[in-house]
């Protein structure tokens, strides 16, 4: 009895699983496919044949290339700043008891739950009233702001699961505070720090809402794409998207392999 129902249930589960995977992958597959579309008209919405020419002409649109470079620079800069501050915050919140800890925890949570629209609008009014010119720096500041909480939370989770006697053992063996941090604490929380860094980078590279408030006259990759929707998105955008996605997949694979080797 169980066999018959079990076999049917298994098939249903299989079908359901594949549907979910299809649902998740379909948009990405379309994006990748239309990077190879030999389109003749202005719009890149109907399949007209296979070509590799957009890969050859990747940087043929100077504004788009500038926007991509902008986005990459901002993503790298904001990731570095976020990881440094977020790791310190995560360590403090996960390891120590201090006055204002509850408030800090609340602020971290608030930063995650605040709608981007609200964050963008309030940042803009802050910059305007403080008379700060909007450019890559204000974008970077904004990106640090909204990704900081994610890095903090990831690092804090790692710190909490860390055996506190590891650091005591390092001190016991003669390591001062800095040596203990560099040789024991940091390597132990590295997986959390790296995960946080990837999150920060991913959040930064595709942010539209907050960026659109604080960009001034600067254009980032997502801003450029949205602006070009009316006139038709060029296939180069698909190609760039494909490459960014490819790098992401590559990192995920490397991480999975490293994790397997660790255990």
């Amino acid at each position, binding site marked *: 009895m169980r066999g018959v129902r079990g076999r049917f249930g298994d098939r249903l589960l299989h079908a359901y699983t594949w549907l979910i995977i299809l649902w998740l992958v379909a948009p990405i597959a379309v994006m990748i496919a239309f990077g190879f579309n030999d389109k003749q008209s202005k719009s890149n919405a109907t399949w007209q044949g296979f070509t590799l020419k957009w890969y050859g002409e990747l940087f043929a649109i100077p504004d788009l290339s500038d926007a991509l470079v902008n986005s990459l620079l901002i993503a790298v800069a904001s990731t570095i700043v976020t990881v440094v501050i977020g790791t310190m915050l995560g360590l403090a919140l996960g390891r120590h008891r201090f006055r204002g800890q509850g408030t800090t925890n609340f602020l971290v949570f608030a930063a995650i739950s605040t709608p981007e629209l609200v964050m963008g609008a309030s940042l803009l009014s802050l910059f305007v009233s403080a008379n700060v010119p909007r450019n890559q720096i204000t974008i970077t500041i904004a990106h640090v702001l909204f990704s900081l909480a994610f890095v903090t939370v990831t690092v804090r989770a790692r710190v909490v699961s860390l*055996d506190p*006697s*590891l650091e*005591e*053992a*390092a*001190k*016991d*063996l*003669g*390591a*001062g505070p800095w*040596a203990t941090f560099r*040789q*024991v604490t940091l*390597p*132990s929380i*590295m997986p959390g720090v790296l995960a946080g860094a990837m999150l920060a980078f991913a959040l930064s590279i595709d942010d539209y809402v907050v960026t659109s408030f604080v960009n001034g006259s600067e254009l980032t990759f997502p801003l450029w794409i949205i602006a070009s929707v009316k006139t038709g998105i060029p296939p180069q955008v698909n190609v760039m998207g494909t490459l960014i996605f490819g790098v992401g997949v590559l990192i995920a694979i490397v991480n999975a392999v490293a994790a397997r080797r660790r*255990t």
Partner: protein
Amino acid sequence: MADQSPIDTPTDRAIELEDVLKEYVSHGEVVQAVKGVTLDIAEGEFFSLLGPSGCGKTTTMRMIAGFEEPSKGVIRLHGRDVTDVPPNKRDVNMVFQSYALFPHMSVWDNVAFGLKQKKTSREEIKRRVGEMLEIVDLTGREKRRPREMSGGQQQRVALARALVNRPRALLLDEPLGALDLKLRQAMQLELKRIQREVGITFVYVTHDQNEALTMSDRIAVMKDGLIEQLAGPREIYERPATTFVAGFIGTSNLLTGTATGGVLKVGEGRVLVPGKEGEVSVTVRPEKITLAKQEPSGDVSALPGTVSEVVYLGTYNSYAVRLADGDEITVFEQNAHDATVTAERGDSVWLSWQAQHSYVMGS
């Protein structure tokens, strides 16, 4: 006397605690974890801090290591006041209960960690780490990561990592707690061998009385932040200073009552307490008691009772004997000759023991 403190001259003192007290504030209340402990530990001694959880033994050890600062009192290592010295500047090393091996380092790097901090030369690190791995029988496993090793091996890495620094004293915080019984017993002997080999003072924290009795030169039995008794294993077992020690170390029977003329009357029976008068508590170990069907003759303590339980335990039988007043006495009988028991459940029996096996506390 064999159980006397082995300290003859002040230079023999490896570790001295003088009226050390530790207070915490927990939920707005002051809690005293250690309430004034004074003790001297001799050079080369195997010293145990024994007690139930929450008795202050771990806090005491952590103060010696420098992880906790005493609220009051002085700690000296080889005569030098180290009360305010941070752990990385103290000449003692610790083996942690969780081992605390660095998971991202190989066995070799774990063991070499302390020497690298002290900027020891490369050749010397190589030589000493190699030697130490040999002592703990881990040669050939240098490149392994801690998680690839068994609990017993990790334990030995932790030991090597501490000992390679040649500390003046080694502190061990329940280091065998995570191992199974067989391995634990093997490691007890192993620890004792290593201690003899390196000749370093060992301070050992445990709640396991067998462990403490097996390995220690001296034991401090702690309860509620105070030392109840500080003596050699034999003395602690044979002559417990308090009823707590008697109950905590091994199994023991407690009899209380009023003694007159050196005899404590218990129902129809008698317990000899030579020279004692008035309120007394008497402890007697289960293996000192003889169980018989007839009333014993001669100058011994003798109590009648009924067997309420017989348990066969391999090397010995354990009897529970209920006295007329309802108290239960435990008796161990060696399985020396055959597997038969002297008495069955429900039998009326007499218990007897020599006067010197009554250990009397109180007046």
